[in-house]
């Protein structure tokens, strides 16, 4: 009984700001941006500066909440099913379109669907870079691909996890170049780097920021990039597009989403605020330090980018298929 009473009181207390919000202009209370990955990762490190910048523009507190678990599915489905009032936003990475696709593959009820979310703005898009252990003979991507063709399933790569972003990047390349590699899934981008530095695998697709120090120290050699143009930090590294594999285009991107059904005036206000926020020093400074190029896209432009990316990844997931069904 007491539990029920206190739950009721709690519910009332929690709803109070909601009542207030209905009357006042948006935003009248703190906004939370959910980062569906643990602190210190790309999602978290993009969410914090944009939250700080938005706070300045909107003159209202913006907090980052880390809700990680199940490769991002926990936080993403939390926002997808949140009240569409503009007070709960999602900072998602490319994997947002992979998770429902993988759910479909296993025939389980998806935790959320992409339609439940409205894209607000793309904040950054960093192409993955193909790196190899520097003691291996390949000096160019061409040599690597030719060798991989000669020895299907012999050359190994590590990834951040099955159907994860780094796995998908490699899958897109394997398909475009018609090669077959051996896959070692690990529990995240960090362990994937450990695996190549320890000599347990030969190649890796990785975000540039995580490997640049190891490229500089001579441990890893960059061969090519998944971007549509060369990466500013690695101007000598060609893109797969240049090398004749336009299908191998992939970015680890970060963007803001709101639950579908968020009122149009709120979305308009957020869009306007974001336009200012991306140019604020609170956002630009940290992104520069993280060596992550800002790629701001909104509205139609972001929707188009998102749709192309989602389609590419959906095809990738389908091609990989269900692992346990594969026969030797």
């Amino acid at each position, binding site marked *: 009984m007491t539990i029920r009473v206190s739950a009721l009181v709690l519910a009332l207390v929690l709803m109070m700001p909601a009542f207030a919000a209905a009357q006042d202009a948006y935003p009248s209370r703190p906004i939370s941006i959910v980062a569906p990955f643990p602190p210190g990762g790309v999602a*978290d490190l993009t969410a914090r500066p944009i939250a700080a910048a938005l706070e300045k523009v909107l003159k209202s507190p913006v907090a*980052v909440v880390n809700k990680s678990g199940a490769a991002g599915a926990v936080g993403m489905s939390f926002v997808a099913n949140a009240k569409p009032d503009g007070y709960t936003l999602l900072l998602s990475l490319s994997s947002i379109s992979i998770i429902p696709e993988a759910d479909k593959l296993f025939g389980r009820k998806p935790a959320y669907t992409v339609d439940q979310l409205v894209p607000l703005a793309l904040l950054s898009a960093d192409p993955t870079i193909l790196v190899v252990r520097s003691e291996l003979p390949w000096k160019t991507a061409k040599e690597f691909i030719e060798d991989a063709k000669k020895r299907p399933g012999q050359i190994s790569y590590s990834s951040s996890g099955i159907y994860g972003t780094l796995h998908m990047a490699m899958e897109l390349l394997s398909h475009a170049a018609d090669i077959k590699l051996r896959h070692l899934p690990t529990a995240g981008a*960090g362990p994937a780097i450990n695996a190549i530095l320890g*000599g347990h695998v030969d190649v890796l697709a990785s975000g540039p920021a995580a490997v*640049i120090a190891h490229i500089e120290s001579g*441990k890893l050699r960059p061969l090519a990039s998944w971007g549509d143009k060369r990466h500013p930090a690695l101007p000598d590294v060609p893109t797969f597009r240049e090398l004749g594999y336009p299908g191998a285009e992939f970015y680890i991107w970060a963007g803001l989403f709101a639950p579908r059904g968020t009122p149009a005036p709120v979305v308009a206000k957020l869009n306007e605020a974001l336009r200012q926020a991306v140019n604020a020093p609170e956002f630009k400074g*940290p992104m520069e330090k993280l060596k992550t190029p800002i790629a701001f896209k909104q509205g139609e432009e972001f929707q188009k980018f998102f749709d192309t990316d989602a389609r590419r990844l959906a095809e990738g997931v389908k091609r990989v298929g269900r692992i*346990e069904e594969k026969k030797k």
Partner: protein
Amino acid sequence: MAETLQNLYLGFSVALAPDILLYAFAGCLIGTLVGVLPGVGPLAGISLLLPATFGLDATRAIVMLAGIYYGAMYGGSTTSILMRIPGEAASVMTCIDGYAMARKGRAGAALAIAAVGSYVAGTVSIVLLMFLAPPLAAFALRFGPPEYLALLLLGLLVLAYMSGGSMVKSLAMAALGLLLGMVGIDQMSGYFRFHYGLVELGDGLGVVPVAVGLFGVAEILTTAGQAKPPEVIRPRLRELLPSRREWRESAAPIGRGTFLGFLIGIIPGSAHIISSFVSYAVERRLSRRPEEFGKGAVAGVAGPESANNSATSGALVPMLALGVPSGPIPAILLAAMMVHGVSPGPLLIRQQPELFWGFIASMYVGNLVLLILNLPLVGLFVNVLRVPYPYLYPAILAFAILGVYAVNSSVIDVWIMLLMGALGYVLRKLDFETAPIVLGVVLAPMIEMSLRQSLALSDGHYGIFLERPIAVTLLAVGLVLVLFNLWSFVRRGLDWRARIALAEKGEQT
């Protein structure tokens, strides 16, 4: 050598600057608090405070975050000893003998030994870190999936020493733990196991809610179920300090725990939890009175507490020397450096000598700060035991719920903790020990992952375990240990475990 000392001088000139000292102190203080709060471990503490350091410069941020990291390892023992609630996952083993000591009125001694052990381990391991970092880091990276599996199998052998009494019951509990560890997304195929429609179970049952439930909540329920309330222990001041005998008995375990923890700590992964399990087993194996373990053996506190502290420095070896995210906590420290525009990597020592050596020196200072901070706190913390149970236990339960929730803002974790509490209550009534369950939950996902990763690397050939020298060595050690045990079992018929079982039977009748 001379160069290292010169660098260290540079480091101390950075670390002893008043403002850096202040941040180190703040980090240690926050870490201690984070460790004392049940459930909230160093990972959660650093995660929650990472954003607060964005405004600082790189050295200050790293010094403070690292302070939280090893400070939490100090603080973690407090609630384990006083209330049988692991302050963080690596303190699970401390719950057993630490709490037993507290019940015997030796809480102050246990806390003091834990603090001193942590200090010795912390300081010695930084010396090791300083001199051995580059060669050890290269060695640590050679630990791939097959080596990790071999190490984990050795970890499973630890089970034999985790509890007295019935071996069958221990094995049953370990099997239950291994099964519970199977919940979640299969990392190799993406298949979702035993989720019952809850996405939150994707990463499996967390070690923290399981441990806090099985130990803390179960303890509270058991006490509440007793016919008359247990006597409130009133610790006297002169009983706060360890006796001469207790000092003597903890010296060697502290030394062994330090080296063991450091070696296990450098291996990439969440090895620091395993270090405390292994240390407990080693101490029990080497002890002349293994039957005292579980009933308040001081070595059972000294060893694991030193090991988990030393493992924290160990884990920093690959991070500092190679810029490699060797575990969840070093990964966050790396992110903190990157936020400040420092690119961590093999060149860090040369490019940022002030940061690197300042960091090392601040750890010496920080460990001393923690010792000075924690020893007087022993007197304060022990007073918690004076609070009558009707007030103490609801408060602890509230803190446990708060702590477990705070780690991932997940209500599901709170439910897991409460269910595990109920399970732990039933098991204790039936005389099952719950520590092997925690070991199972910790080891199962790691064993599965490393076994299947190894096979992914070898394309399905089991020969991979015999081709790699480190893996072979570890497996051979394991085999020798098993044979050794079998031999003593055959020769003597009754070993200490059976003697305990007999003795317990005698007590009951």
